[in-house]
């Protein structure tokens, strides 16, 4: 019995494939039967049918997918099965996160079955590790810079990253370098509204506009960029307020320590008048991108430039 839990779909699929392969090795090549059971459409008794002993006692793998969307019957029956497992059946339960079916998860964990955690990769360093591991598995080498380039271009979706790795492995020979990555994925960059706001608040106009264009080109909505700008300016103003006598204490602002630290550094460049100009411009842009203006892209670009120029001490 194996529990695969976590929201990262690609890792979960790989874990299932691996579990099936292991079971096949143990059973001998031809004899293994794989039965897929989908959680959301589960009907009472399905699991019992799949796991009940058969005439010739073939080994089987039963994969219960999307258990987090499973019906109540599924939860009850998995818990029952866990109490009395069949010897020649391998049960793989895939649960993609969330609280639903917690009773089932607890029951499986209680038996000491292996749990494969497939958490989403959030930090860039984790994604870089993933890329390196991909190339290592394929027996290939890749430059450190090329790894960073790949993650910057495709980092938001692990599946895309994985398929890019396999494509590079299949199409090229020798060590994968930055030049190779650029040839395949050059000019593509995934930028969030926050990165645009950071660049603008640091007064880097050219950078901010470039990032903005990348962000818009990769499908970020202008409204989101404006919201990120507003959030940034709000943080700056709040941290500025802590400096005056009688102002709030930094720890009461509801900001994370790294946000405080960052805002303090950035504030060096800001004057109160600059902040006022910037906030006014961003409020105007928000109105324009929500239908008050003709061209949302122009509005947000002007806001970004105004914010970047409003710095400057």
């Amino acid at each position, binding site marked *: 019995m194996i529990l695969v839990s976590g929201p990262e779909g690609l890792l979960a699929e790989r874990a299932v494939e691996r579990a099936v392969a292991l079971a096949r090795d143990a059973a001998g090549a031809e004899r293994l039967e794989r039965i897929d059971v989908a959680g959301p459409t589960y009907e009472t008794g399905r699991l019992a049918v799949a796991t009940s002993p058969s005439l010739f006692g073939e080994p089987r793998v039963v994969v219960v997918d999307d258990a987090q969307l499973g019906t109540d019957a599924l939860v009850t029956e998995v818990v029952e099965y866990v109490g009395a497992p069949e010897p020649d059946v391998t049960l793989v339960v895939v649960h993609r996160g969330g609280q639903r079916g917690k009773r089932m998860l607890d029951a499986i964990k209680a038996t000491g079955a292996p749990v494969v955690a497939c958490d989403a990769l959030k930090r860039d360093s984790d994604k870089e590790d993933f890329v390196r591991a991909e190339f290592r598995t394929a027996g290939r080498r890749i430059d450190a810079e090329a790894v960073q380039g790949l993650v910057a271009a495709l980092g938001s979706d692990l599946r895309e990253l994985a398929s890019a790795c396999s494509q590079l492995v299949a199409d090229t020979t020798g060590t994968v370098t930055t030049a190779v990555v650029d040839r395949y994925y050059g000019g593509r960059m995934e930028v969030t509204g926050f990165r645009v706001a950071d660049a603008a608040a640091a007064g880097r106009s050219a950078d901010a506009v470039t990032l903005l264009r990348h962000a818009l080109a990769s499908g970020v909505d202008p409204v989101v960029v404006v919201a990120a700008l507003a959030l940034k300016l*709000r943080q700056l103003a709040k941290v500025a*307020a802590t400096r*005056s006598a009688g102002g709030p204490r930094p720890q009461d602002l509801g900001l994370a320590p790294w946000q405080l630290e960052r805002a303090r550094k950035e504030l060096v460049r800001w004057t109160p008048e600059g902040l006022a100009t910037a906030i006014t411009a961003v409020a105007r842009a*928000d109105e324009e991108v929500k239908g008050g203006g003709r061209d949302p892209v122009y509005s947000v670009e002007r806001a970004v430039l105004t914010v970047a120029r409003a710095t400057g001490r």
Partner: protein
Amino acid sequence: MSVWDDLVGQDAAVAVLRGAVADPSAMTHAWLLTGPPGSGRSNAARAFAAALLCPRGGCGECHECTTALAGTHADVEVVATEATILRRQDVEPLVQLAQRSPSGGRWRIIVIEDADRLNETSGNVLLKAIEEPPPRTVWVLCAPSPQDVLVTIRSRSRSVVLRVPPVDAVARLLVERDGVEPELADAVAHASQSHIGLARRLARDPEARARRREVLDLARRIRGVPDAVLAAGDLVEVAQAEARAATEERDAEEKSRLYRALGAEEGKPLPPALRSQLKSLEEEQKRRATRAQRDVLDRAMTDLLSLYRDVLLVQLGASDGASGGRGIDLVNVELADAVRTLAADSTPEQTLRRMDAIGTARERLAANVAPLLAVEAMAVALRPQG
């Protein structure tokens, strides 16, 4: 006693409506009652409905009158919304309803209290029905001004304009009907700028008065940009809390009523087939909360606007800023000192710019700009500037 008693200071409009009740040749099929918020548009509409149905032309005592005034008369359909717009699906049933004969009375009356919240789609749905209703159907639409309704609807209805009631009349009403102290009645009638409903709430609820005072205090509190952002955060938070307080209890009750109606046990997850009903209820409640929050913020901004109006009056010498003094009365009589200080600290040009900023913020709020951002930009414009 008559149904028109509660309409304060609206003699001209009442005369027109009474004439229509008394004289069939003065009657028409669609009326557009316009007037500033608080002038009693919806009350006038209900009173008109009552007078039309009453055998004695609006006695205010018979069954027809009392039920029509309460909005429960079978032949009076009152449509209002708690969301930001009246949607197409909200008004579509009215088209059919308009074609039916009245069940008991002389008229079938359809009152739309928020005709300004009809958008283009829902307005157009009603167009034909308003243009040519059956002989015994009457439409009564209410809106702040004729410009707030679609031009095609405006041209199909007869306009009756309600005016801002005089402050004295509002104060007198509060004293006579609600037993408010004369001095307090005078102050809240000023503060609410003759908005009858608001004046009554201010008179009855000390907390509402305190909240208003707090909002006006913003003008003094904001000394710089950081203060402005903090103050804006506070203001939006208060608005959210107030909106939540106003809707929370009702939301919970509606939810439990839905659970009962569906025969589901509360606290347990609903079966998937029924979830869409819960979802649509929650969406409705969310729309209502958005509207409530916007209304609270808008009221706060109107209050601030009244303060700067007072400041401008003093700066231009149109008022000496003392209560009961020379010139035009201040709206915020009890804050006369603060008004004089603000007036001395700034120029009329600055005051006008600040009023402009408040007006812009109100427009932005209506245009779906993030409330916090709109309020921040406004607060920044209110800071003292050299």
